[in-house]
């Protein structure tokens, strides 16, 4: 079943065509990789999918609904969540609060109920704490729940970002270089976690990654971007041996 279809997506920054006629189709439940050399337009593609930038051309359809041009907030509500290449945590808040903010739209009580500490406040806060701790456990962050998120080591900050994105209960999770800055054992652990959350939370994943071991290890299908346009797509084995792709990465 097609979950996300992107047709002819493009954006320019001044004279630079950062993404051009970008097409992808994402099936529910699969794990996709988006690769490409530095500056190929991968992060920009994520920013277009999540409404951070408005595309000049193209149509994005999520589960049959046209979401092109919607705001980031509406797109998140429609079911796309993401992480950032340069980590963006709520640094002055605890690890637990970071995840609870991800739960914001699924667990609601009014501002007044919060100020007056009405029963709905107590009940829903309790549910939020339980749910958030559940998610943190999956990422092995439950022991750090009450630490300031800024004080987490780098690898754990990356994991917390994924946990927070997952808390919004997305259909599609976009991960921008989740393993960047991690050592090999952290990367291994992350791969296991990603495989686990796919099943546990029934979420489709598209991830940008430079670590080819990770990409080849867990992705079922790969898209390759170069200079803003799609260079190749297909199974990891085929794509990574494609001479065009090798050339794009290694140069002439």
């Amino acid at each position, binding site marked *: 079943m097609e979950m996300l279809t992107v047709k002819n997506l493009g954006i320019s920054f001044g004279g630079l065509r950062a993404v051009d006629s970008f097409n992808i189709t994402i099936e529910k439940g699969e794990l996709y990789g988006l690769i490409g050399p530095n500056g190929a337009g991968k992060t920009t593609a994520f920013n277009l999918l*999540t409404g*951070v930038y408005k595309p000049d051309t193209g149509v994005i359809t999520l589960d049959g609904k046209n979401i092109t041009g919607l*705001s*980031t*907030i509406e797109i*998140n*509500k429609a079911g796309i*969540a*993401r992480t*950032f290449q340069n980590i*963006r*945590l*709520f*640094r*002055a*808040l605890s690890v637990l*609060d970071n995840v*609870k*903010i*991800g739960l*914001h*739209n699924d*667990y*609601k*009580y009014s*501002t007044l*109920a*919060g*100020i*007056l*500490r009405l029963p709905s*406040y107590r009940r*829903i*806060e309790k549910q*939020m*704490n339980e749910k958030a701790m559940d998610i943190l456990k999956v990422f092995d962050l439950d022991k750090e*729940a*009450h630490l300031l998120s800024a004080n987490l080591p780098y690898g754990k900050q990356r994991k917390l970002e994924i946990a*927070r*994105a997952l*808390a*919004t209960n997305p259909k599609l999770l976009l991960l921008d270089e989740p393993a960047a800055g991690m050592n090999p054992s952290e990367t291994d652990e992350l791969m296991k976690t990603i495989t686990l959350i796919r099943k546990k939370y029934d979420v489709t994943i598209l991830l940008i990654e430079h670590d080819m071991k990770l990409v080849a290890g867990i992705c079922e299908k790969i898209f390759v971007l170069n200079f803003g346009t799609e260079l190749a797509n297909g199974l990891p084995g085929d794509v990574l041996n494609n001479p065009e792709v090798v050339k794009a990465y290694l140069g002439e």
Partner: protein
Amino acid sequence: MTKIKELNKSTRNNIITLGIILVFYVLCQILIAAGVMSNLMQGLLVPLCYYSILAVSLNLTVGILGELSLGHAGFMCIGAFTGAFFTRCTEDSIPNVFIRYTIAVLIGAIFAALFGGLIGVVVLRLRGDYLAIVTLAFGEIVKNIINALYIGIDEKGFHISLQDASNLKMAEGGDIIVNGAKGITGTSRDTTFTIAILLLILVYVIIVNLINSRSGRAIMAIRDNRIAAESVGIDITRFKLLAFTISAAMAGVAGVLYSHNISSLVATPKNFGYNMSIMILVFVVLGGVGNIRGSIIAAVILTLLPEYLRFLADYRMLIYAIVLIVMMIFNWNPACITWRKNHSFKDILQSVFKNKKEEAKASGKEEA
């Protein structure tokens, strides 16, 4: 174990703060009853409360929302005038002071919130320093308009003019309530220390509960990282507006306290000008941005200090400035922060009641 302890940490802190306020209140009442409190100090009790409310409420905008507002005195001014206006009009029709005062507080808060919301809608969509500039201008405009505002009442109803009192064209026996630069006079001075403390506690609880709720987290998420907050579906404009409006409403409450503590209310640069806004900002910054208890402490110290330094005559402001600098260093210097961590109140208590076994146990648990 640690979980429960940590979860309750902010709640515990808040209860401590409330305890301190109550102890302060009881202490003052005892001193007054014993007749040992100076007139100067007695006159400062209510101002301490409204300055604290102003500092706490501005901290919601500056520390929790992370936006710079330079017009807090403007919201206070609106609360002061609308509240006093109401009291002045209803002194005969609502003889019950409690009911009248409650309504006056609500009116002051609602009108201040209304203006806060209006400015917020216009400005909060913009980024950067716009809010600071617009609020600064707003504060000055409010003060100047009120200085030119004439409102009178006679049997035919209200008359409003922005020129002078004779323009009101009032019938014989009419009563001028707002008299331009002369302001509102003859409001009954209903504010008492008890009311002021109660309102301070109310404002404190509202703001602290807000911070520790779903909406408060959304507000702090916007402060910490707007783009990430959007990415998890937080409605930026809505929660910015919420914080800003509540902050303005609380300043309005402080205004009502203020206007019912004096017999003639006028809008001068001193009480509602930008100097006042800056002074409130100083309370917030020195008390610690985002630290609600700190705002109260800073407001109290920095209100009492100039009064008690009067004997220094011309050197007063010099000492005041030095204290500001010392407080700033104490609050923000990394070396001082570590020193404070190692010499916390709790540690001092522990060393006084030395019980080595207990201590070892406690620290063992904390590490676990």
